[in-house]
């Protein structure tokens, strides 16, 4: 039986060449809405019931993504009266946005393959005859 493989059109890696982990993709997704600090990212992940990660995983992923240019440290800070000035804020870079789009496309393609194999129901509404 031939080994199944992803079609060539599915992007395998983000443009930076860094292999995106689950944690990295979740962080990128959380930064799509705007800049956040570490705890802000974690809170959003918890609210979305997306992932539970510890400080080691979060800052390890942040370090690698900063190195790959997928995210950057935000220069604009919120009002000091409203926030702790010791926090660092992170923002998505254009490369990070492209990586998030590519990973989302890859996951979408995987889901469509799962649908084709009837692992998941077809989301299109059934057109019933009248």
């Amino acid at each position: 039986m031939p080994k199944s493989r992803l079609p060539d059109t599915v992007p395998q890696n983000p443009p930076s060449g860094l292999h995106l982990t689950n944690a990295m993709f979740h962080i990128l997704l959380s930064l799509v809405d705007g800049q956040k600090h570490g705890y802000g990212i974690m809170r959003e992940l918890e609210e979305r019931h997306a992932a539970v990660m510890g400080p080691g995983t979060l800052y390890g992923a942040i370090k690698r993504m900063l190195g790959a240019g997928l995210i950057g440290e935000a220069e604009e800070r919120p009002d000091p009266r409203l926030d702790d000035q010791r926090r660092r804020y992170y923002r998505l870079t254009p490369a990070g946005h492209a990586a998030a789009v590519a990973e989302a496309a890859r996951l979408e393609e995987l889901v469509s393959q799962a649908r084709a194999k009837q692992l998941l129901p077809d989301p299109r509404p059934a057109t019933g005859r009248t």
Partner: protein
Amino acid sequence: MSPAAHPLAASVRLYRRLLLLYPASHRAEYGRLMSQLFEDQLRVAWMRGGRLALVELWGRALLDTASNVVLEHLDRWSEPMRNGSRLLLAAAAAILVVPFTFVVLNLLQYGLHLSIPWNPHDLLWPQIRFTVWRYLYDAVIVLSAPLALGLLMARQLQLRWRPQVDALAWVVIRKGDRIGLGLMALCLLLMATMGLYFIGENLPCILGQRLAC
């Protein structure tokens, strides 16, 4: 309960101790942020579920620390092996001096019959009287080129996380610099020359055409 003995304060202190397990460079850059984040998590867990929630959070924190400490140390260790590592390049070049000198001088002297009175091989070999030292001498000459090749190849490796298989893996960096690739080619050339020499030298003995070898 004194403030210092409060479970949150004690937890923060203990977590700061745990951070010492990380490489110093990682700790210097992210230690304060990690400790601050854990403090935030502790506060929320305490408000939501008291001691039981703290125990659960600690369970996750210990697993998180254990896996990430290993990852950060491996990452730091693989750092010198990344492209542009001059240390490995210099070590490989230094090691290559031995087999290069041996091969070039002996080719000139015995291949082209040039007189080289200061050939280190001719000066050293008669001085080595014990068999063990002779084997060691041969081993240094023969194994230097493969050792240098190993160092140069290690330079082309990088430790990366492969999400497809959820595992760390050594990845070959295909882009190499000219000096590194040139030295790798030299290693292969020296190994081939010495291999041919040793085969040519020992083949008559192996085939039984010569008894004194």
